[in-house]
């Protein structure tokens, strides 16, 4: 599969989707004006990945900020990975947050409530 490697900007996140090296990561900030446009290629990639995923996928979320429109798309991404779990493969979400970022921890916990995927919470060191 092709590798997605998008460099972040002040309002869009870094995204790495690399099946061959088992590297799945989204980091930085996400507050694009047009959320759908930014995430469309990412959703397409994940759709394709879901058809033939690795036995074990570890997805790192290292977001420092996302707006509410992005929060909806992040849920859509997680729901895709939930399907992969339902199809018998292993998925772990590593949710990174800074120690004083209670809101970011809470956001992760909210997603973990909604989707049936194991979450690990990891404190980011500055």
């Amino acid at each position, binding site marked *: 599969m092709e590798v997605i490697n998008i460099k972040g900007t002040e309002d869009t996140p870094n995204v790495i989707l690399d099946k061959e090296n088992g590297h799945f990561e989204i980091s930085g900030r996400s507050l694009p004006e047009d959320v759908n446009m930014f995430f469309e290629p990412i959703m397409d990639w994940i759709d394709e990945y879901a058809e033939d995923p690795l036995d074990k996928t570890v997805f790192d979320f290292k977001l420092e900020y996302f707006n*509410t*429109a992005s929060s909806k798309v992040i849920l859509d991404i997680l729901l895709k990975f939930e399907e992969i779990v339902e199809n018998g493969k292993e998925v772990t979400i590593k949710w990174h947050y800074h120690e004083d970022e209670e809101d970011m921890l809470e956001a992760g916990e909210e997603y973990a409530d909604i989707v049936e995927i194991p979450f690990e919470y990891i404190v980011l060191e500055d």
Partner: protein
Amino acid sequence: MGEMNENKGHSFLDFAYQMYKSMKTNEINLVYEGVVTQEITKTFTSLTEKNLAKSEESNMVQRKVFHVMVECLQNISKHADSLEGEEEKRGIVMVSHGKDEYNIITGNVIKNEKIPALKESLETVNSLDKEDLSALYKKQMREGRLSDKGGAGLGLIDIAKKTGSKLSYQFKELNDDISFFILTSTIKRK
């Protein structure tokens, strides 16, 4: 002619100085009236972020101010209506702080027909505690569709959830078609 210009210049100077004084007294960090675009949103949030970083504000408060500003500005750029004939999404934005709190005040024109639904959303959000807000947010994320404007109906819930304060709002009727909508979000400094 010359004298008139001088008078004009003088009164502008007075006005500018009065405004400067008033902003100082009321500890207003930022005032803006005009078109609200993604570029403006990025500029103001990064400006506020830099100013806050220089201050001794806790990271948590800094992030909350940033967060609420983004949601408020994107609300205007997505939902603001206009005075007759204008296509652009305009609004006012003001950030002020006192000893105990930051206030982020935004204002924009809204069609009267949209007010009942907006009022209902605001009242619902204000009637909920933190746990219920979180439940509503999750429900809305699951069930809500992104509108063609990219809104998810989550902004107000999120502001209330992040600030832990009630949303304060006012509508001022301008004519039979439109009103001015003011939203004040308060972030407590701890």
